[in-house]
């Protein structure tokens, strides 16, 4: 780990970090602000007026009268995946392949720091800021909920939901970081690194539309984030968090080794 490089990353990426955190905070506060135990039922009634496919696609199905389930279905089917994925794609590109493509990696590698330490710093930056984005949102969510609706939020399951979400995003981040280490061309990394997570989101939305399309859930990573099961069962959360963190760490490790061994034309 290299503090100087970490700080330089922060200077390079603060705008996107701020933007993504801000957008998610906006949706989080709106979602909680819109909740009211009495009107939750009427919201449910309102949603019934929308086409069923649309409700299912965006994961609004079964919006509960209970705050935790309400947030789970309102935020974690789409908002809490899409914005972090934008962040992951952009920052993965910025930390490795962009420097290789432009040639500025030469300046990092002509300092007495090993490639492993540079790649480790870059991956740590990606993961820790991703964690920070979720942390800020979760803290805000909890504080706002207990202030506005004391006793309504089941804090344990809510945190479990966020741990599972972080695990899944961590796995996506490891994949994009791998692409960033693998490619020498920013555009190639971006096109694959963005299209696969977007495809996963699209498949998740499609698979919720009806019985005929339900099989699609086997083709998307985000099926792991089954909000109802996560809120219902602590062991399910532990299982998927363990799986995603384990695989993600393996891929991060492999990416760092790959970057150390590869031949660079810079």
């Amino acid at each position, binding site marked *: 780990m290299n503090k*100087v490089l970490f700080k*330089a990353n922060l200077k390079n990426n603060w705008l996107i970090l701020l933007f993504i955190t801000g957008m998610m905070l906006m949706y989080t506060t709106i979602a909680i602000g819109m909740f009211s135990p009495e009107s939750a039922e009427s919201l449910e009634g309102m949603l019934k007026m929308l086409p069923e496919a649309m409700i299912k696609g965006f994961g609004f199905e079964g919006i509960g009268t209970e705050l935790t389930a309400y947030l789970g279905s309102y935020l974690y089917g789409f908002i809490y995946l899409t914005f972090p994925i934008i962040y992951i794609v952009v920052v993965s590109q910025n930390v490795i392949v962009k420097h290789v493509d*432009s*040639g500025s990696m030469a300046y990092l590698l*002509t*300092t*007495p*720091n090993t490639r492993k330490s540079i790649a480790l710093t870059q991956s740590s930056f990606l993961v820790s800021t991703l964690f920070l984005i979720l942390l800020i949102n979760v803290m805000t969510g909890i504080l706002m909920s207990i202030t506005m609706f004391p006793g309504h939020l089941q804090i344990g399951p809510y945190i479990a939901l966020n741990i599972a979400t972080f695990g899944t995003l961590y796995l996506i981040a490891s994949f994009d970081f791998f692409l960033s280490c693998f490619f020498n061309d920013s555009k190639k990394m971006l096109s694959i690194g963005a299209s696969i997570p977007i495809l996963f989101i699209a498949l998740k939305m499609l698979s919720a539309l009806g019985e005929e399309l339900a099989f699609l859930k086997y083709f998307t990573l985000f099926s792991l984030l089954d909000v109802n099961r996560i809120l219902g069962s602590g062991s399910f959360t532990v299982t998927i968090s363990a799986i995603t963190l384990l695989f993600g760490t393996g891929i991060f490790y492999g990416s760092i080794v790959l970057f150390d061994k590869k031949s*660079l034309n810079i």
Partner: protein
Amino acid sequence: MIEIKNLSQIYPSGKGIFNLNFTVEKGEVFGYLGPNGAGKTTTIRNILGFSNATEGQVTIQNQDAREHAAALQKIIGYLPGEIAFFDNMTGIEFLTFVGQMRNLKDLQKRDALIERFQLDASGKIKKMSKGMKQKVAIVAAFMHDPEVLILDEPTSGLDPLMQNIFLDLILEEKKAGKTIIMSSHIFDEVQKVCDRAGIIKEGQLVAIEAVNELKAMKTETFILTTSDPEDFKRISESGLKVQKKYNKLYVEKTLDYPKFFEILSKCHVTSIETKQQSLEEIFMKYYGEVK
């Protein structure tokens, strides 16, 4: 100090460098020359430990340049040919960043270089002119007082005044016992500072010569303007090699000066200038003639 042994790096396109062998001794300034795409940068990438060679190796102080890249960077200063910085930084922020990445505590040399090259480092690098960026890169390469300097076309983008300041710096570093490899296109530059020069063409090392011997090979060509059309005939009949291009006569001085001027004195010369000859031209001419 720097040994390049049987070094080959072959790209999928079939281009690359093939079986290079040369050594640069401590305290030596080695000029590395060749046309674009000849393999200069590929060689430099291997010296810096960026690339994995197909075969052979580079060693610096008997350490493998690829394997011990990070440790060797303590004693290496590098000036890239195509410079890419961290764009959103100002010049001074970038130099501070590189300094901190090097754990550099003593900033005297950095500040002295900034002053010497009259570098205004306060602006964003993105908005700097080519020459100003080159100055930032020079300071970054020299500021930690490295024992080995790898310089890829170091004077490109500098105005003649700054080029001279730079060449003076190279001579000082040489005096201080530094080992320097620099690629260049300009004969005068190499002639002023380099001890030996190697030329690479299509990935093969064509020649390595002491620069003093190269100077002897330099043929001087003078460009004359004359008022008498008969002068062309007069000169060519006298045994000098002459070519006519756009009303100007290109005369190669193949005789000694007294004879040369004796011939010219019979002509109606209205202007005379010397033609610059690149080191590559001299190399190519020499080795073309040998083969």
